[in-house]
Each structure stands twice: as structure tokens, then as C-alpha cells.
């Protein structure tokens, strides 16, 4: 029997170390968010005081609502764009510049985020000065844009694994191109679209760098608010918020996996 990589000496030790490095800090974070004491490094018993404190904080509430709202809008917009892009890059013959388009769509994955952030800062500054508009529009635009590749990848994967003869069969059975899309392509694509939307949502929810550069005064999202708090003093309240965010992400991830695993 051939030995695979899992049988190499030290494999178990190395993988355990990696997993510990990845998950131990998170475990500690979650545990300490239930600490009833004031001191960050001192365990004083289980308590929910930091959760109630965070909940009662108007700034936290405000940032949470803004974050969720922004993530939802950005997820919807980026998923719509990503769906069209995925259809355009898979549902027609090869065309000139296909690779270029592919790179363009995935630009946010390749260009360092800080570069995009600075570029957006300069770009939007011009509009802010000349239009006088300071609203959430800039954040919505920026988030929608960098979420596109996260929505695009699962949708494209789903489209590529879909049997093209199904669409041919629909056309054969008198379906117009639009009816084919609505009755066959879209229902079969739906798990991919939902998965893409969820990834986009989580990506937007989590973003700090671009948000910090683009936001106007009083437009803190949850991550930028937490960053601000930590700069002043590390508070257990931030632990509690992180734990809640983690909970939300886990729920979304479970749904995402359920959607992508089941093929038809």
C-alpha cells in the first residue's frame, strides 16, 4: 500500500500546531467574552455582563445596524452583478479578452486591499468635495465592488458543473431564451447564488481597511468601531461583540456548506 502524506513523520504534530494556532486564540476569545470580571487576563467566573453592556451601548447598536444593512445591500448588488458576469463568462463561446475579463472581475482578490482603499479615498474625495454628498452611497459602492469576486466564484463553479444539455432540452421544448433562464438555469443556479450572496455578506461585514478609508464621519461599522475602541483601551466588550459576530458567521457558514455540498 502506498503511503500518502498523512503518514509522513511529524505530520500529526505539525497539523495539530497549525490548528492550535488557528483556533486557540478564537477559543480563548470566546471563553473570555463570558468572563464576569473587569480584568482581561484574569478569569473571575461566568457572566453575561459584557454582552448586556454591549447591547446597551448605543454606539454598538448603531454600528451593528449599519454593518448589517451595508452588508445586505452590498451582498445583493454584488451577487446580481456576479451572476450576470458568471453567465457572460460561461454561457457563450470563448471570446477575445476572456482571460482579461476574468482578471478584471477578480481584481479585488489580487490587488492589495490597501491600494484599492487609497485609490477609493482619492476617487471619492473628489466626489465628496464637488457634489457635497457625504452619505452611505460611497460605502455601498465600495463594498459592492470588492464583494463581486466572492459572489462570482461559487456562482461560476455552479454554472460550470451544470449540464448544458438541460438548457438545450428546454429550448427544444419550446422555451424562449428568457423562459429557459427563468425555468431551468435560475432554479438550478439558486444554491450557487445563495452561497455567493452569503460569502459576499460575510466579506462585507468583516471589512476594515477599505471601510476606514472610504467612510465619512459618524459612519462606523462594527469592525471600525471595535478598532476605535481597542485603540483607546482593550475592553471585554469587544470580546463579546466578536463572539456574536463569530456566531453569526458560523450560522452563515453552515448554511453555505449545506447549499454548496448538495449537488441537485
Amino acid at each position, binding site marked *: 500500500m502506498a503511503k500518502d502524506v498523512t503518514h509522513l513523520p511529524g505530520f500529526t504534530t505539525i497539523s495539530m500546531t497549525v490548528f492550535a494556532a488557528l483556533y486557540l486564540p478564537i477559543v480563548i476569545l470566546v471563553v473570555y467574552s463570558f468572563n464576569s470580571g473587569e480584568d482581561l487576563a484574569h478569569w473571575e467566573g461566568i457572566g453575561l455582563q459584557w454582552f448586556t453592556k454591549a447591547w446597551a451601548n448605543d454606539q454598538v447598536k448603531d454600528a451593528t445596524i449599519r454593518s448589517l444593512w451595508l452588508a445586505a445591500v452590498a451582498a445583493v448588488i454584488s451577487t446580481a452583478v456576479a451572476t450576470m458576469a458568471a453567465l457572460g463568462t460561461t454561457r457563450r463561446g470563448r471570446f477575445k479578452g476572456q482571460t482579461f475579463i476574468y482578471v478584471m472581475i477578480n481584481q479585488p482578490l489580487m490587488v492589495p486591499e490597501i491600494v484599492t482603499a487609497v485609490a477609493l479615498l482619492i476617487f471619492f474625495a473628489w466626489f465628496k468635495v464637488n457634489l457635497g454628498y457625504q452619505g452611505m452611497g460611497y460605502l455601498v459602492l465600495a463594498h459592492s465592488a470588492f464583494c463581486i469576486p466572492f459572489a462570482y466564484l461559487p456562482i461560476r463553479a455552479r454554472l460550470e458543473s451544470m*449540464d448544458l*444539455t*438541460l438548457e*438545450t*432540452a*428546454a*429550448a*427544444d*421544448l*419550446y*422555451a*424562449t431564451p428568457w*423562459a429557459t433562464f427563468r*425555468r*431551468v438555469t435560475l*432554479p*438550478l443556479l439558486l444554491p450557487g447564488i445563495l452561497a455567493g450572496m452569503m460569502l459576499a455578506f460575510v466579506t462585507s461585514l468583516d471589512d476594515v481597511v477599505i471601510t476606514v478609508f472610504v467612510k465619512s464621519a459618524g459612519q462606523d461599522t462594527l469592525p471600525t468601531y471595535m478598532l476605535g475602541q481597542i485603540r483607546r483601551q482593550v475592553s471585554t466588550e469587544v470580546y463579546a461583540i466578536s463572539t456574536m459576530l463569530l456566531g453569526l458567521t458560523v450560522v452563515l457558514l453552515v448554511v453555505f456548506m449545506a447549499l454548496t455540498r448538495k449537488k*441537485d
Partner: protein
Amino acid sequence: MNQTIAISAQNVIKAFGQGDHAVRALDDVSLDIRKGEFFTLLGPSGCGKTTLLRLIAGFEMPSGGTILLDGADITTLPPNKRPVNTVFQSYALFPHLTVAQNVAFGLEMLGKSKSEVTARVAEMLALVKLEPLAHRKTSQLSGGQQQRVALARALAPQPKVLLLDEPLSALDLKLRKEMQIELKRLQTETGITFVFVTHDQEEALTMSDRIGVMSAGHLQQVGSPKEIYTRPKNRFVASFIGETNFLGATRDPMGYRLDCGIVVQAPAAQADRVTLTIRPEQLRLVPEAEGDIPAKITNLVYFGTDTHCHMSLPDGTEVTARLQSPSDGESGLQIGQGIGLRFVPGALQVLEE
């Protein structure tokens, strides 16, 4: 236009690729398929059967020529505007719909009323004996059942022509035999023109009203199974359908002189140098002195009901005769034995080269 012709392909050409890399999948194919017939396209892999079917369905546009349906030009019509339906080799059932919803799909797209759709779906499911499975998802069906759903779905809108691309190739032998009978029954009951693609010659011979034999993008011969089998036009058709013997011959005032020197009778042809063909079951073995041609047995292969007797003629030509095995299993023939050959009268055919 002749009202008995359902599909007429006229000088159809289909090329894939461009320039030097172009492949002519169909090279000037002209073909008439009659209304209500079971027409089979038969040929080896890559000869262009699927391509011709896809052109009739409208999934591809021809590079040249025209396609008529009931006399009307449909060459450039998109597939959803053609009253033609397809049974795909992979079935292509919609996985997100139930059996009944799959069958209803075409009817709904045609804008039929709800009551009409329901009635027709029930009728189709009864026709293919699938009523108990109406509300199953198609992924929960066996291969044979999926096949029936595909048939019901394609027949439901009552197309003028039904196209079937090797629909039985994914089934095991027993199921395949059942479905052959089933298909023939459906075709007779519905009266719809069937265009059936296969590379299985036995399937073609047993099911078809007429067969079109294809090779390398050309239509070699069109005719009834009997015509194709007993009067093949050329060497390709003769050897693709069944087993056969080829004999070189030269024209002679008395008929044809075989390469072994014997003169035989066969239908007249233009060329001086021809190939004659005769099926193994049309050769008779007689005692050496009584035969038209002397031969020597080189091998005997027992097949149960039949025995194949391989022989060589005086000039070295190899021929095979198929004999019914005698009831006691003893043919009395031996390898190395000399024997006399006789041709069944009228069985020798002249091939165009």
C-alpha cells in the same frame, strides 16, 4: 412539395472549425424522411449522425444547404420554434422538477391551458406506464424509467418529428431489448415520424422502416432493412451491415469471371473490374464434384445454432459460409477437407467501387 415528406435535407453541409482545421461533419447530405416512418440513421462513431440530428432540431445551423419540415424552410428557425422534439442520449431530465412537471414542460411553454396540460400529462404517463411515479424527482428513477420520462416529455407536445440520439445505449442488454419493442409500439401508436440514431446494426435492422447508412459525413445508402441487407450499394454498406464475403471479378461475355477462373451470373454493371458480394448464409456446401467452385475448408467455428465454415478458393480468396448446425451436432465436415461451393441463385450482388 410532396406532402408525404416530413423532413427534407437538401445538400446539407456542416463544417466545424475554420481554415485548415475545418472538419466537414456533413458533406453534401440530401435525404427525405417520410411522414410517419421509423427512420434510422446508422453509421460508425464520428460519421455525423448526431450532427444531422442537431441540425434538424435547430441546435446548430448548417454551413450550407436547406432543411424543410412539411415543405416549409426551417433552416434558420431557432429550436423553440420548431415542432420537433428530441430524446437526448443523456436524457437531460430537469433535476429540479418531478416526473409530471418534466412531461408538462413543453406543453406549458406552448401556452396550453392548465386542464389541457394535466390531461395530456396523465395520458403520456399512461402511455409509458409511469403513472405511479408522477410525483417522484427524476434523480430517484432507474435508467429505464428515466428513459421513459424522456420519451413522454418529448412526445407530449405532439411534435411532427421525434429525434432520438442513441437513446438505448446507456441501458443493459435486457432493458434495451424491452425498450426497442416499447419504442416501436410508441411510434405505431402515436403515428409520429421517428428519426432514430444508432451505431448498432441489429437495432437498425429490427426497428426501422427505412435506414440511412452514413460514413464520414456522407449518406451511403437509403433503403428498407431488407434492401440494405440484400442489395448493399457499396463495400462500406455491405461490410458495415452483417457479415459478408467479397469476391474480385472481371466482366466476361458470359457474366463475370471470378479471380479463381470460374464464370458466374450477377446483375450487370458498368465497370469491367468489379467486386461481388454474397452473404455467408447464401453459400451452400455440396460434395466437391457437384459444386460450382472448389474450395478447401480452413477452419470451423461452432456458434450453437450456426457453424461458420471458413474456406479458401483456388486463388486464395477467403470466404465464410454460415451453416445450420445439424441436430446431432456432427456436420461431417473436417478442416483441410475439399468441398464444393454453390451460390444461392440471384444472391450475388455487384458493388459500386
